[in-house]
């Protein structure tokens, strides 16, 4: 479904290498954990999928199309096909859970009737039906991240990217978020999870890609995150 072919990326006019010769493929319906220390290149790699950055060389193919050729002004179309959940959550404080999710769908031109029909269902899926009218400040960290996940799902994306979604959560809340992602994956959405939490990755027991210094050092089915 998504192929990374010989991706290279460096900063400071080539002095700092962020990504070096990365090759891998994401298959439909997979749950992939992308692991590595801070600075290993996880975020750089993820931001290339949503075209916030472009690789210096190499191709990223999504359903056969090389997205590095997509023009800046057409990026939005790609972003509607990919949902992203961030470590810092990025919810609008002045809007309720419902409005935060609805906001993302409005952007795509979806009619209000569809929004009123679908958004409660999505919030139900993430377990927040009762808290639809709560503002982010009235929700716990875990609940806020659920709202963010609901927002990412609202577009019905082909791929859900989660960039350190549990980074600011305690163990219990973190594991609940991972379970939610696993549930979403069971429904058929492909998930790419970037994390440096080894205990979580080891419990998931799905494919693990390990990055070190910008290169893939391990890519294992049902892998573990080994600190080397």
């Amino acid at each position, binding site marked *: 479904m998504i192929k990374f072919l010989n991706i290279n990326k460096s900063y400071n006019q080539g002095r700092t290498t962020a990504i070096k010769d990365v090759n891998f493929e994401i298959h439909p319906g997979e749950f992939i954990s992308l692991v590595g220390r801070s600075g290993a290149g996880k975020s750089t790699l993820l931001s290339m999928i949503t075209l916030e950055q472009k690789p210096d060389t190499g191709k990223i193919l999504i359903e056969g199309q090389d997205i590095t050729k997509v023009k800046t002004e057409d990026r*939005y179309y790609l972003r509607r096909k990919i949902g992203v959940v961030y470590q810092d959550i*990025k919810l609008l404080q002045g809007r309720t859970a419902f409005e935060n999710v609805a*906001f*993302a769908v409005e952007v*795509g*031109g*979806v*009619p209000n009737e569809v929004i009123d029909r*679908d958004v409660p269902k999505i919030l139900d899926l993430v377990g927040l039906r009762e808290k639809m009218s709560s503002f982010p400040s009235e929700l716990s960290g875990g609940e806020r991240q659920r709202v963010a996940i609901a927002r990412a799902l609202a577009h019905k994306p*082909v791929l859900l990217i989660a960039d350190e979604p549990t980074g600011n959560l305690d163990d219990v809340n973190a594991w609940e978020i991972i379970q939610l992602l696993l549930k979403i994956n069971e429904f058929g959405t492909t998930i790419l999870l970037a994390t440096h939490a080894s205990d979580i990755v080891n419990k998931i027991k799905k494919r693990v890609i390990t990055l070190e210094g910008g290169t893939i050092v391990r890519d294992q089915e049902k892998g573990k995150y080994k600190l080397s």
Partner: protein
Amino acid sequence: MYVIKRKVSISLANMPASTNFKRILKYGYLGLWRNRWLTLSAISVMVITLLVLSTLLVINSLAERSAANLQDRVDISVFFDQGIEQAKLEEVKAEFESIEEIKAVRLITAEEALADFKAKHEGDDLVTKSLEELEENPLQPSLVIIAHNLDQYPIIFQKLQRSRFEPLIAKINYEDNRNLIDTLKRVTGGIQNFGILLTVIFGAVAILVMFNTLRLTIFSRREEIEIMRLVGASNSYIRGPFLVEGLIYGLLAAIIASVVLYPAITFAVPKLQVFFGFSLSDMSSLANILKLSVIQLLVGIALGTLSSILAIKKYLQI
């Protein structure tokens, strides 16, 4: 139960454009309302700009009317020697009438000139007696020439001097008028230049104030804009509301300026009429005020749109 399907997202891009358009309008309006004090200042400056522009147009029109009015009074008088035959005068008149720049030629015979003179000095015993003592008519016959416009008088003057009837001409009375015409032209031009300068300055201030207002709106909503971007809003969807905001500034300012303009003109015109001494009634006509309002509307919208485009280009890089 909500089921997440994989390949349905494409349909999102094909949603009706009218939904997006309505949302863009709604958020544009909301942006205005949330920053209503800023909006007020932006609109005030714009209203002043538009009123300055309208005043300039009115003054310009007044200057043009005065010029036209004076122009009608400006002419060249060609005096001939006494004793010239009437037939010869008619011939000269016909010849002059064929000159391209000349609009009309009026013949004043010596007798008519005398009659005019007497009528003018009726009751003045000294003049009447002096005339009676003279046996002959002391006045010369003349041709009064009117051009199509002021610029043509020097040309006509030259043509008259080169005319084959030049030996018959005693005097061409033109020099006196030229000064008046030149002064009038300078004053009109000066008023125009000053008005244009003033309009440009106010226009620039209006653009700056609106630009700054939009800049603040963009900054206060940067989080929202960032998220819009991340969830896949198109550029036009993000930028649209700011364009709408600028447009509404122009629209509101034009409406307010028109509301001010109407009573101002109906109040001022009768007073100006007394001052200038000729009719200005068509200036306060509804058609003329409507014309000014349309100009204000177009300029207002142009300024509003221009400032939002500038602010978007500078602060809303997507």
